[in-house]
């Protein structure tokens, strides 16, 4: 009987040791070569080996599921060092930082002025926050955001006579559950929710006289004749690290157009970012490389994170030319919006700095509309740097 536990113990340590080292031996070879040249001491060396073993541990994703199971057994909702929380409906939450919101308010005002001067419709879209969908955690972790920033900002936008789209209100009207709107294992919204955003944006801008390319047809996302709906199991950026059994997996949908598309993306210097003009490849790049990997699929849209991306739709020659300010919260909304627009310039202010001011460079373009997607991570940014 006693032999069983000893055999199991020895087998386990030698098994994982052998296969982990086997898969990581190239890294360790490189590390040994580098370390012998550099002035690193043995402590740094052992730390580096520890990192290599951790990153390349044999069947890491499967092994960490046991961590997930144990955490579930112990009833823990905390999955990180005190910043991430899971609520009673299984959604992950982030403990918000303190905002310095003045810069964002001022920049939004100057953007509003710019649009007014140039007679461009300016739409401010309030991205919904999961905490406002009635779970208990909101009062602990979102007090400033939900009670102060959002109402004050809304008041400012309406005072400027800008267009305002409260997506939360739309979703509540549709009586969707929080788990249908958001991923469990990630801070982002489900693809289906972002598609509702697209429909609402088009509706508002069409009221302002903007004509979208084949909008009626393209907005019919649930039409099986127009779109092929595929899904992957998705872990989010928390789940990928902390085990799928702990967080549970989400279904992550792709809507693949069945109709012909001709879209490509270029960077700030005008160089193409993809080698194909097919929507599936140029806009959802990387999504189909590894169907079994529990990756963080948000990055598959718009080559996130980039400060500047230009999307040209060669078929939508009569469509509008739109400037959007986004963070990762609306990557997919903009991706599908591009099917109906001639050109979309996507700016991510989180990547801006004083030298890297893309708005200054493009403000002379003739835009048909400007949209700012306001999510919590946008509030700590500046939009225009003027």
């Amino acid at each position: 009987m006693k032999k069983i536990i000893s055999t199991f113990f020895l087998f386990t340590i030698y098994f994982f040791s052998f296969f982990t080292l086997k898969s990581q031996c190239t890294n360790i070879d490189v590390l040994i070569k580098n370390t012998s040249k550099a002035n690193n001491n043995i402590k740094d060396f052992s730390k580096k080996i520890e990192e290599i073993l951790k990153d390349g541990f044999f069947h890491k994703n499967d092994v960490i599921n046991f961590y997930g199971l144990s955490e579930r057994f112990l009833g823990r909702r905390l999955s990180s060092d005190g910043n991430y929380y899971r609520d009673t409906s299984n959604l992950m939450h982030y403990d918000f930082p303190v905002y310095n919101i003045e810069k964002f308010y001022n920049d939004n005002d100057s953007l509003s002025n710019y649009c007014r001067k140039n007679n461009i419709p300016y739409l401010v879209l309030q991205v919904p926050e999961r905490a406002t969908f009635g779970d208990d955690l909101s009062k602990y972790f979102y007090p400033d955001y939900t009670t102060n920033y959002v109402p004050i900002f809304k008041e400012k936008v309406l005072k400027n006579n800008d267009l305002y789209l409260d997506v939360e209100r739309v979703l509540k009207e549709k009586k969707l559950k929080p788990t249908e709107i958001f991923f469990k294992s990630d801070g982002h919204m489900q693809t289906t929710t972002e598609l509702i955003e697209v429909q609402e944006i088009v509706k508002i801008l069409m009221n302002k006289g903007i004509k979208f390319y084949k909008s009626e047809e393209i907005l019919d996302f649930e039409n099986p004749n127009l779109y092929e709906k595929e899904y992957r199991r998705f872990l989010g950026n928390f789940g990928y690290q902390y085990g799928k059994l702990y967080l549970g997996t989400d279904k992550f949908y792709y809507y693949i157009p069945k109709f012909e598309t001709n879209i490509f993306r270029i960077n700030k210097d005008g160089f193409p970012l993809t080698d194909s003009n097919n929507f599936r490849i140029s806009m959802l790049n990387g999504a189909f490389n590894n169907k079994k990997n529990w990756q963080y699929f948000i990055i598959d849209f718009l080559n996130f994170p980039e400060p500047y991306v230009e999307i040209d739709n060669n078929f939508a020659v009569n469509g509008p030319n739109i400037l959007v300010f986004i963070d990762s919260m609306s990557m997919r909304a903009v991706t599908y919006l591009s099917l109906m627009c001639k050109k979309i310039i996507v700016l991510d202010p989180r990547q801006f700095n004083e030298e890297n001011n893309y708005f200054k460079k493009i403000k002379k373009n003739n835009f048909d509309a400007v949209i700012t997607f306001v999510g919590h991570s946008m509030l700590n940014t500046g939009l225009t740097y003027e």
Partner: protein
Amino acid sequence: MAFSSLIFLFLFFPIVIFCNYVIQQKLRNFFLLIASLFFYACGDLKSIPIILTSIILNYFFALFIDKAKEKKNLSKFIMIIMLVFNVGLLITYKYLASNISFLNNILHFNLTVPKWSLPLGISFFTFSAISYCLDVYFQACSADKNFFNVALYISFFPKLISGPIVKWTTFQTQLSERKFDINNFSKGVERFIIGLAKKLIIADSIGVFVDNVYNRGDFSSISVSIAWFTTFSYMLQLYYDFSGYSDMAVGLGKMLGFELDENFNYPYVSKSVVEYWSRWHITLGTWLKHYVYTPVFRALSKKKNIRTGKKINIKTCDYISLLVSWCIIGPWHGAGLSYLIYGLFFCFFIICERIFENYKKQRTKMGRELKFNFITKEILPHIYLIFVVDIGLMIFRSVSTRYAISFGLSLLGLNKNNFFNSSDMLYFSQYFRTFIVGIIGSIPIIPFVKNKIVKLNRGKLIFSLFKILILIVLFIVSISYTVTTTYNPFIYFNF
């Protein structure tokens, strides 16, 4: 290199265990010495010269003391030099920098603060070295002429960084006569897995919450209920962290054929501070009893009171010896004033308990025995112990005396803090189950259940199967924690 790190579990240990069984028996001690020094170097390469100097000098100190045993004054002189060296080493590396900073701050001196870091495990290997030399001095054993044996005793990797502090006399016999059998190896594996699980699943998990509260600095924002929950959680964290390490050390020792001393025996079931310290960090307590308390007590009991000319009262000798011992235990853990207060805090309660015991004995002699019922004999002493240890460990955990006072005020609700905040429920719900599992594991419920099951028909088989299953699950889950979580060094690595 912590025992719970991947580099130890999947690189260092497989190599050591393989080589230990493959190489010739006469080379095994030398091999283990090299492995131990490599293990130490991985954790603190810069301090390798310090540990080597300590090994070499203490080897010669013991030899000289042994040679001079016929000449009492000479051997005493060498013993004093040995103590000055070892204690000096501790003071220099552990207390000098902080004391100079303290003097610079308080008295506005402009002394240069040395920038050396605390050598890993210095308190443990220095105490081992002193123990060896003092055993030779007290003629409990003779000095070992084999340098590698002494070096291995001081630097043996399972006990090097956080103990247990094994006596030379216990270790010496095992250097030549070690048991290598599957039973012993399996017991070692069991202890190692239990220790690993204690550290990773309980201690580190609770540690996230405890650190979250203690690192705030401003304790006025925490409610009374969270303050108490934090201190009780820290009791569990420290117990599982340190006893987990000790279990792993004992387990590794067994796998390599050594028997290391036990360091813990369910300390939280104690009903007095005296009993608690006989169950908590047992090897440190034993060390101090042998090498500090007893010699001081003996020396005092021989001395005469200057005023009266009579011998000093036995009770007074006892209290003074206790005070001296506790003035060492506290600062042994660290240089801050809070550690000294921690030591004196426990010393105060131990002396009170001694006085109460003496009072009870007196009453019994006089025929007026104090009578206790179940509550006053079993329940109240236990509650008293838990609260004393809780407050003691709160002082221990606080980074400074100011922090300890502030936290103490929060415990009492005197820090303008609420009794309960709305976010408290979140913390309770997050850690409640871990807390309960921690409490269950800290009382001897498993031995109790084992005894009950073993008495049943086929009980032994059922228990063995159940145990194997639990150990396998714990080992797999522990590996998943090492792969997933960030590195958390053992708390006692700091001492």
